[in-house]
């Protein structure tokens, strides 16, 4: 793989001439802007950037980014992206999916792209509802969600995207929400990660599931419920008045009060993005008793799938000649009016 050349662009360079067709006020607009703001900061090259999506509201995303884009079929975007990456590992691939696309119809592919560790950024817009098909409960909808398909309230247990990703073997798990000013930082960290980087982005569907994330993602007043994680920094929230500590007897996390800024005395954990055990606790941390863990929850790269594939191909090809004539005449051959030849 060649080292990417940094290209100077502005936000405008990443806008297409296509009219954006999400509902007015949809959280997707904010995510689009955050991405278009982040790409110039990364020095990304529009010619080398590919947005690949499945089906759903979120999956319209590629049409609005001035780069290469492939709007594929429902749930299968990870498979298309894997093929594209294996064919050209130099491509910088962003995958766009939603809770229905990525965790319901495409759950299998999402699992495998994560465990294989194909180098790409995977943005899962979680709005806990099917938007484009007009409001049915999705795999992340909370129990009791009333929708056209669950008029009395849903009774299946919701999937948790970040826990799913970590369980599937993801080496990067990040979280943000549509209107957060920190979202570009999470995207940048995901981009810097070599491997499959999974980002759950809470997104407000203002038509079918309005403000379900307001407890922690409201534009104002919910900051105390946000735990923004930073590598090497203590896990503090609520204006540093509270922190996350480890209950060593129960081996689980707990919320502690921090008095006079003395977080060490309160036993607050220092975030280590490479600690997989803590990452498992963070993705399982129930919102309510705990704040919402946001930022980079886990980041511990290991060799990528495409690098392994390329290395194997190079090693297997070493010293071998791609000679078609020889290949066709391989095995045991004979010549008419001649004699048998030894196997090649």
């Amino acid at each position, binding site marked *: 793989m060649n080292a990417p050349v940094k290209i100077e662009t502005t936000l405008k360079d990443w806008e297409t001439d296509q009219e954006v067709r999400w509902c007015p006020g949809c959280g997707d607009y904010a995510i689009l802007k955050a991405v278009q703001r982040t790409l110039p900061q990364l020095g990304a090259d529009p010619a080398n950037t590919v947005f690949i999506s499945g089906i759903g509201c979120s999956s319209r995303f590629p049409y609005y980014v001035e780069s*290469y884009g*492939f709007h594929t079929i429902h749930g299968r975007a990870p498979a298309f992206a894997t093929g594209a990456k294996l064919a*050209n590992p130099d491509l910088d691939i962003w995958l766009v999916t939603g809770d229905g696309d990525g965790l319901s119809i495409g759950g299998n592919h999402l699992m495998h792209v994560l465990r294989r560790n194909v180098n790409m950024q995977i943005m899962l817009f979680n709005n806990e509802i099917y938007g484009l098909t007009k409001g049915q409960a999705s795999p992340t909808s909370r129990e009791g969600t009333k929708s056209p398909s669950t008029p009395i309230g849903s009774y299946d247990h919701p999937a948790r995207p970040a826990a799913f990703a970590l369980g599937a073997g993801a080496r990067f798990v990040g979280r943000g929400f549509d209107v957060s000013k920190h979202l570009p930082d999470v995207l940048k960290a995901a981009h810097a990660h070599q491997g499959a980087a999974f980002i759950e982005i809470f997104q407000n569907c203002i038509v079918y599931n309005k403000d379900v994330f307001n407890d922690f993602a409201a534009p104002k007043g919910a900051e105390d419920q946000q735990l923004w994680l930073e590598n090497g920094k203590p896990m503090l929230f609520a204006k540093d008045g509270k922190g996350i500590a480890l209950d060593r007897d129960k081996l689980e996390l707990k919320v502690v009060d921090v008095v006079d800024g003395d977080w060490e005395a309160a036993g607050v954990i220092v975030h280590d993005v490479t600690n997989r055990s803590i990452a498992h606790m963070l993705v399982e941390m129930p919102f309510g008793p705990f704040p919402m863990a946001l930022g980079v929850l886990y980041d511990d790269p290991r060799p990528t799938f495409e690098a392994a*594939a390329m290395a194997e*191909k190079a090693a297997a090809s070493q010293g*071998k000649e791609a000679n078609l004539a020889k290949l066709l005449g*391989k095995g045991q051959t*004979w010549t008419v009016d001649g004699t*048998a030849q030894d196997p090649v």
Partner: protein
Amino acid sequence: MATAATAPQDGLPATPESVVVRFAGDSGDGMQLTGGQFTLSTALAGNDLATFPDFPAEIRAPQGTLFGVSAFQINFGSREINTAGDAPDVLVAMNPAALKTNIAALKPGGLVIADTGAFTKRNLDKAHYEANPLEDDSLAKYDLLAFDISEKTIEAVKPYGLGNKDALRSKNMWTLGLALWMFDRPREPIHDWLKAKFKSKPEIADANIAALDAGHAYGETAELAGPLKQVHIDPVPSAPGLYRTVTGAEAVSLGLVAGAQLASLPMFFGGYPITPASAILHHLARLKEFDVTTFQAEDEIAAICAAIGASYAGSLGITSSSGPGIALKGEAMGLAIMTELPLVIVNSQRGGPSTGLPTKTEQSDLYQAVYGRNGDAPMPVIAASSPGDAFEVAIEACRIAVQYMTPVMLLTDGYIANAAEPWKVPDPATFEPFPAEFLTEKNAVDDQGAETFLPYKRDEKGARPWVKPGTPGLMHRIGGIEKHELSGNIDYSPDNHQRMTDLRKGKIDGIAVPDQEVCLGNTSGKLAVVGWGSTFGPIHRAVDNARRQGRDVSHIHVRHIWPLPKNLGDLLRGFEHVLVPEMNTGQFKTVLRDQFLVDATPLTKTSGQPFQIAEMEEAIGKYFDGVEGNEGGEVPVNDDQLPHLESGHDDGSLKNQSSPQSQELGS
């Protein structure tokens, strides 16, 4: 000791036109190897031939059991050979289980050669024989040559100091020696082959050669005593050149590699394990030096989607499967049609519907191939007629995919995938290259006179440009939503969808397909037998036989299923009758009727077994027997018929090898 059987009926003539021999034994007896080497010596003797390896589906079959029998059938002759033969003239049975599972197929009066040394109480029990069939009169309607091959082998290799167990491993070579004598074949090529194979163990080579020679010498002795006699089959004149044997799965793989090379493209192959298609993945996984990337996906859908993703990024995407997997890939094929990206889909058909008969052959995915997608989704379909033909057809599939920017479906079947035939090794220098072209510059001028890029602007063939991501200045978006006929931007407008539907259809309809030729017989007359795919062999031979009887019948074999050759309708209308034999309930017949309004009559067979020549002859005969209205119909099930694959596992898996022959021969 030879035991002459009673009342031989019609044994082999001294110079038969063709002979069918089946070698059958335990999986451990090396029957595929024996068959492979006999094939080689037969090819060297200048006969035409066709083989069918018939090996157990079980991964490790217990010794001596009925389901552990491995067989290899070869049909060879002094005239063109088109099938592995209806019924064997000679059956070599290395143990009771082999006799039991294969005897029903033998022609009445055929010759059984059996190893009495393996007909022990234990082996007879395992084969569910209550009495030794070699000793009662249950084989009365056949010639029987039963003697202790095991003992004779041990005797022959004694000077080489091998233990009994090792010595018995040469049993297959002893048997091969006998077969070589019987058909007047030279031993030297096998000597040379054994010396090369056991280069580092010369004593093993010598022991095997001794066994081979002993078997050969025994023939002469036995001829004096019993039913065995030497027969001679004249060579068939064939083009000089280098030959090898090839299975359909090998030939498809080689053809795809050649196709990608001719297109100057790296190959990306996405596959998922399924019988009988997995062999293609296995072959290609070993050819990485040809810029081949193989990807075993999480499921059939991911396999095709990854292949499409790779085509999008500039490789030649290929995926392969069998019926159930092809069904899963349907939606993604639609996307490849909509986004107009090249893709080759290989369907090794098996019995269906659902899991059906994983290891049995059928041609029942034709509707699925031609019609099986949502929307108006036209896609070229071509079919291979034999293992060797699969090579050319695979190249043709790649050519159409790249030149017309379209997915292409290549149909083979379980029979073609596993069967072997002699193949004249082609010279790659004679292939016509079709290098893919990638657009790197803007291709249009807008209203203001500025250069612009239109991703769906078509060339004279109706193909849109192929643009690799990574190309500066040509960023664009594609997807499965209907798009504007030039810009490719989302466009739902009614007249645009009408135009795009017409353009997609027109592109496929306009694919340059060679005019249909008649492969045997006249271009008009009383009866045309029209086939496609692996029915080529039995149809060809039956038509040839009928013509030798003076009957006015022609064989038309169709390779291009969709679009059909433009002249096919007129050609068929030149015949009084059109008979369409196929291993389904009449699918191609429907297509022909639909496309050309010809009165095509079906001849169908769905027993998981290929047509026999005799069945085909009977069907043809009905057109000439003076009885009106009895033509066509359905061929009844014949359980004794072979080649006869063993049933597979419920999950559709077969053993972990492409073909025993290729594995044993180390090709």
